[in-house]
C-alpha cells in the first residue's frame, strides 16, 4: 500500500514531519490566453476569467508579428515576423510580459499557416509561396525543423492543417472553393496521399489515435468521419448536417466532442461523436472567423482582434459566449 503524508507551508502544519512545509508560491492574474493583434502586430494577453476579462497591453516584443500560434500549456508561441522576410520565431516566457524571441533556423519563409499538435511538442508550418509543408519537432525548448514536404502540384489552396498527436504527420485540407481534397502528409517520409474528397474542407481532426479523421465542409455543410484514413477510408456523414452553415473552423471538444463554428449560421455546434448527436448549439453575437483554443481547452476565441471586442466561446459549464473588451 502506498502511503503519503502531505504538508503545505506555514502557518499550518498538519501531522507533518517537522521542517517540511508548503507555501503559497505566489499569486497572479488569471490568464485566459494570448491573441495576436493584427493592427499593431503585437501579442496581447487576455486577462481575467471569461465574463470578467480584458485584453491587456501588448507584450514587450522585439519584433512585430503577422502570425502566431500559442502553445498554451508551456507558455510559448511560434510566430511569423511581419516583414517581407517572414522569418519564424519561437517565443518563450509569454507570461513574463517580456518574452524572448529565438529565430527558428531552417524554417520555410512566407508561412501562412501554423499548426501545433495536442502535446504542443511539434508544429507544422505551411508556406503557400513555396507550397512547402514543414514539420517542427522538439518544441518548445529544442525546436528543430525537418525537411519540408512539397505540396506543389496539388490543386487548390491549403485551408487548414492538423497534426497528429506525435507531430509526425498532418492532415492537409485543400480546396479551390468548389472542389477539394484532404491529404495525409508524412513528416517522416515526405509522402502525401489523398484521404478524402470534399468541396471545401475547412478543418479536420485526428481521432482514434490517428487512425480516423473528422472534417467539416463549408460548401456541403457536412461533418464527415473518415475511418481508417490510411486504409479503407470509409466515409460517413455525421448527423450534424443542417445544424451549421458555412463552417469556418473545427476543434476538439471535451470527451470526444467535435466543435464546429459556422459563419453562415453564426453558431457553434457541439457534436458528440460517440452518441452521434448534436448536444448543443450556441448562437453567436458575431460572425465567427476562427475557433482557437486558449489556455483552457474549453475556451475558444471566435473572432479576430481589432474590430470591436473579442468574443470567447466556452463550455466550462454550459456553453456560453462572452465578450472581452480591449483595455
Amino acid at each position, binding site marked *: *500500500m*502506498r*502511503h*503519503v*503524508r*502531505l*504538508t*503545505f*507551508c506555514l*502557518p*499550518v502544519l*498538519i*501531522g*507533518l*514531519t517537522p521542517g*517540511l*512545509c*508548503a*507555501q*503559497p*508560491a*505566489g*499569486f*497572479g*492574474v*488569471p*490568464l485566459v490566453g494570448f491573441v495576436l493583434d493584427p493592427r499593431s502586430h503585437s501579442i496581447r494577453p487576455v*486577462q*481575467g*476569467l471569461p*465574463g*470578467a*476579462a*480584458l485584453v*491587456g497591453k501588448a507584450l514587450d516584443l522585439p519584433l512585430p508579428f503577422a502570425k502566431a500560434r500559442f502553445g498554451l500549456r508551456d507558455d510559448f508561441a511560434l510566430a511569423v515576423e511581419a516583414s517581407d522576410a517572414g522569418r519564424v520565431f519561437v517565443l518563450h516566457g509569454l507570461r513574463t510580459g517580456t518574452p524572448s524571441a529565438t529565430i527558428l533556423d531552417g524554417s520555410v519563409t512566407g508561412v501562412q499557416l501554423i499548426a501545433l499538435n495536442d502535446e504542443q511538442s511539434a508544429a507544422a508550418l505551411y508556406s503557400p509561396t513555396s507550397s512547402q509543408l514543414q514539420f517542427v519537432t522538439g518544441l518548445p525548448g529544442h525546436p528543430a525543423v525537418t525537411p519540408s514536404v512539397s505540396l506543389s502540384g496539388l490543386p487548390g489552396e491549403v485551408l487548414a492543417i492538423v497534426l497528429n498527436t506525435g507531430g509526425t504527420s498532418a492532415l492537409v485540407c485543400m480546396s479551390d472553393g468548389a472542389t477539394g481534397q484532404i491529404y495525409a502528409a508524412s513528416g517522416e517520409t515526405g509522402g502525401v496521399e489523398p484521404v478524402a474528397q470534399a468541396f471545401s474542407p475547412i478543418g479536420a481532426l485526428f481521432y482514434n489515435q490517428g487512425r480516423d479523421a473528422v472534417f467539416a465542409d463549408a460548401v456541403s455543410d457536412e461533418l464527415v468521419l473518415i475511418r481508417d484514413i490510411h486504409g479503407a477510408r470509409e466515409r460517413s456523414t455525421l448527423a450534424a448536417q443542417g445544424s451549421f452553415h458555412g463552417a469556418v473552423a473545427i476543434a476538439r471538444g471535451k470527451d470526444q466532442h467535435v466543435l464546429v463554428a459556422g459563419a453562415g449560421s453564426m453558431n457553434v455546434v457541439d457534436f458528440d461523436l460517440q452518441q452521434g448527436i448534436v448536444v448543443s448549439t450556441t448562437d453567436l453575437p458575431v460572425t465567427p472567423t476562427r475557433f482557437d483554443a486558449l489556455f*483552457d481547452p474549453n475556451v475558444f476565441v471566435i473572432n479576430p482582434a481589432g474590430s*470591436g*471586442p473579442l468574443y470567447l466561446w466556452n463550455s*466550462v459549464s454550459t456553453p456560453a459566449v*462572452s*465578450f472581452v*473588451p*480591449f*483595455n
Partner: protein
Amino acid sequence: MPKFFRYLTGAVLFAIAAAQAPGQTPQLAFAYKGPADVTAADVGVGGTITVPTTAVKSTTTVLLLVTNKGGGLVNLNQIAVTGPGFAVTPAQISVQPNTTGLLTVTFSPATAGIFSGSLAMTVEQGQPISFKLAATAVGPNLITSYFLNPDGNQTPVADGGSIAFSPIIVGQSGTATFVVTNTGSGAGVVNAVAITGSAFKLSGLPLLPANVAPGADVRFNLVFTPSTLDAQRGSLSVDLGTVTRTFVLSAQGSGAVLSYTQITATDTTVLSANGTIVLPAAAINGSSSATIQVSNTGSAAGRVASVAVVGSNFVVSDLAPLPVTLAPGDTMTFRIVFSPKDSGPSTAKLLIDSALFNLQANGLGSKLTFSFRVGQSITPVADSGTVNFPNTAVSAKLPGEIDIANTGNVAGVINSISLTGQAFAMTAPVLPLTLQPGDTAVVPLIFSPDSVATRTGVLTIENQTINLRGIGTAPPPLPSYSFTGVGGSADPLTQPSVGLSLASSYPADITGTLTLTFTSDSFVDDPVIQFSPGGRTLDFRIPANTTTAIFGSSGGQVQFQSGTVAGSIGLSASFATGSVDLTPNNAAAKTVKIPAGAPQLRNVQIGTRTATTFEILITGFSTARSVTGIVLQFAAAPGANVTTPSLTINAASSFSAWYQSAASNTVGSQFTASVTVTASGDLSAVQSVTVTASNAQGTSNSMTAALR
C-alpha cells in the same frame, strides 16, 4: 393869281374875242376845276387846261365850266379831246344863258409822263373853241430784281422770270433778296407777296401793303432750305397793285448723302433710318458680327464724325479713326460685334452721327434660375442671393428645396453641386444633369440646426451660389427616460445588458453618452467593469420620433461586465440634440449592486510536479476581496492511503497581501493562487485534490484536480 383877277382876265379875253368876231358871238366863260380845287380857274379859249398831276392808271377828273354869259343858248358840239389819256364827256352840251354847263375832262394816264392834248368843240353859234390840255402823269415804275446772298449781283427779273438759287447743302438754307425798286415818279405799292414750294419760304417781309416811294424799294428774302438733293421749284407772286408779277423759283439741294448697308457673307441689306440690324445669334461668351458699310451717294463730301452703340452686349469694332471724310462715291466699313453675356434677345442702338439704327441679336445659352420652396412658399433666388429657412428647433429637420429651371434657349449641363454648412444637407441629383430649355430640376435640402444660433451655408450650383440661412431655436425638453434590461443587482462575472428608453418619442435626433461608474465596497476599482466595445462611456443616438437608444453596432442593448468586486455600478446618461444639452438637472440614474459574497473558484489544476511536491493552481475570485482560508481535500488513489486527507490553509494574510498589490487591481478580485504541497511518502498515492476557499461571507464551491 387871286381869283378875282383870274376871273376877270378870262372874262376880258372872251369879250375881246367876241368883239372882234363879225356877227353875234356867244359870250362864254370857261373855267376848270380840278378835284382838289376849291374854286375854278379861268381858262381862255386856246388856253391850257392843266390837269392835276395824275397817277398812272388813275383818273383825274377836271371839270370844265362853261358859263353862258350871253343872252342865247349856246350849243357846244363835237366836244372831243385829243391826246393819250384824255377823255371828255359829254360830247355836246347846251348851255342856257347865264348858266354854266359842265364838261368832264378825264385824264387816265397809262404811263407816267407829260402829256398834252387838246380839247376842242364847236360852238354852234360861233367859232370852234379849243383848249390845250396839259397833264402830268406820275406813276411808279416798279422794277423787280433779286440778288443771291451773300454776294450775288442784283439781277432784274421780269414777270414770269426765274429766280435760280445756287445749290444749297441739304439741310442748310440759302437766301435771295427780292427787291422791288420804284424808278417811277409815283409811289408804287406792294400789296401782297406769296410763295409756293415746300423748300421755299419768305423772310423779312415788311408790313403789307407796303408803299414804294419813287426812288425807294421794298425788300424781302426768299429762303431756300432743301431737304433732299432733288430739284425744287416754287413760285413767287408779288402784287404791285396794278399788276401781279409772278416769278419762277428754282433751286437744287446739294451735299453728301450717306447710305448704310449691312453686309453679310450671303447678302447685302440696305438699312433705313430707324431700321433694325439683326446680327447672327451667338453663344454666351461667344460672339457674332455684322459689317456695316457707309456709302456717300451724294454730290458732296460727307463726314462721319461719330459711331456709337448705346446698349450692352454690342460694341463697334474695326472702326477707322474719326472723323472720316467720304468723297462722293466713297465707302467706309466697320463691324458691330455681339457678345452676349446672357441668353435671350439683346437690343441696342447704333448711332452713326444722327442716323439711328436698332441692333438686335439673340444670345444662345442656357440660363439657370433658381427658386426656393419651403412649405407652400416659393421664392425666386438670385445668384449670390440668400434663402431663409423658417426658424427650426435644434436637431429638427426642416425640408426645403431649390428648384433649378433652365430659362435659356439651349440645353444646360450641371456638372457640380456642392454644399457647405454643417446645419444643411442636400440630396444632389445624379450628375452630370442635362436640363433642356424649360426643364426644371430639384435639389432637396434639409435644415437641421445643431445649436440655438443663426446657421449659414452655401449651395454652389456650377459657378452660381445660393446662401442658406436659418435660425436654430431651443428644442423641446427631453421626455423622461428609463434604463431597461438590467435589475438592481447583478451577479459578479456576468455580462448583463442595459438599454435606454424614452417615455415618449422626441421630434429630433438625440445623441448621448451612457456612463458607467463604480463605487467599490473595498475602495478599489474593478477595471473590467466596461461596456463591451470597451471603456466606461458609450455613445448612443435616439433617432427622431423613436424612443430607443441605439448603441452603435450593439443595437438597442449593450452589454457590460459586472466585474468581480462588491460595490455599486452606476449607470447614467447625458443627452443632447445638436449642440444643445438636454440632460435634465435631476437626471435619472440606475444602480446595479454587486454583492459581497463567498469566494468562487473557477479552475483548479495541477501545476509543476516533482517527486515530492506538486503545485496546485487555484483560480477564482472573491467579491469581498477577501479569502481567509483554503481547504485541500486529498483523495487517495485506489489501494493507497493518504494519511493527510485534508489541509486547511490560513490564507488571510497571503490574500491580504495579494489584494493590496497593484497587480491584483488589474482584474478586480480575480486571482490565481499557487499552493505548493510537499509530500513525504509516495506521491502517487494521491489521486486528486479538491479545493474550497472561504471568507467571512462563506465558503466557495469546490473544484477538483486529478493528479493521476
